């Protein structure tokens, strides 16, 4: 089981801020494909991966990052703090 978090407009497009998922995805890319296949909402939220940032266990990673031993994945737009 993996915990998935969504922030900012990714969260708003999906209507949820987190979910638990049983997945066989080997990396983030496969996880996104799996999410996209679930529901139209996910297709929309993940339409343009250039404006999606990814954290695995609270570290920024890229789309090829392997999910082995990862317990928390987060998807969000580029940061705008400060």
């Amino acid at each position, binding site marked *: 089981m993996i915990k998935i978090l969504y922030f900012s407009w990714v969260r708003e497009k999906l209507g949820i801020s987190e979910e638990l998922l049983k997945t066989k995805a080997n990396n983030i890319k496969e996880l996104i494909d799996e999410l996209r296949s679930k529901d139209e909402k996910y297709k929309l939220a993940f339409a343009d991966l250039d404006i999606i940032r990814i954290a695995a266990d609270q570290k920024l990673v890229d789309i090829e990052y392997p999910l082995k031993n990862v317990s928390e994945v987060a998807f969000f737009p580029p940061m705008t*703090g*400060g």
Partner: protein
Amino acid sequence: MKVILQREVFDPGQIINKFQCDLKNVGAVVNFTGIVRNNKELNLKKLHIEHYPEMTRHSLAEVQLSSKKRWNLQDSLIIHRFGDLEINEPIMMVMTAAKHRHEAFNAAEFLMDYLKSRAPFWKKEFTNDGSEWVLSTEDDENSLSRW
């Protein structure tokens, strides 16, 4: 070294004095304060900041540690607010203390560049017409590469 994440407004002068009071034999203190300013249309009602608390804490503590080593800082402090903010209220503050000014300036700028592009905060502007997420700028995305 400290990272403070809070909803409440803070008093920059009070925090700066407290920070400086605790220093020992430091020659240079640099402070950056980010303030909520109006949008281009001048109709901002409030600014909302969402964040990813656990990741913020981890990543800021880590970057503080690496900046401490790199610029030989005696101390640094990062405060960042979340939730609802009004125009002219402080959003965040970075403070650095070192022997010499170039070290303190460089470390403060580095921490700011990091905060802008790598710390998980997102701003949403509320106006009379509705609300909109602030877009990141090319400049903020690229600033970190100079370090």
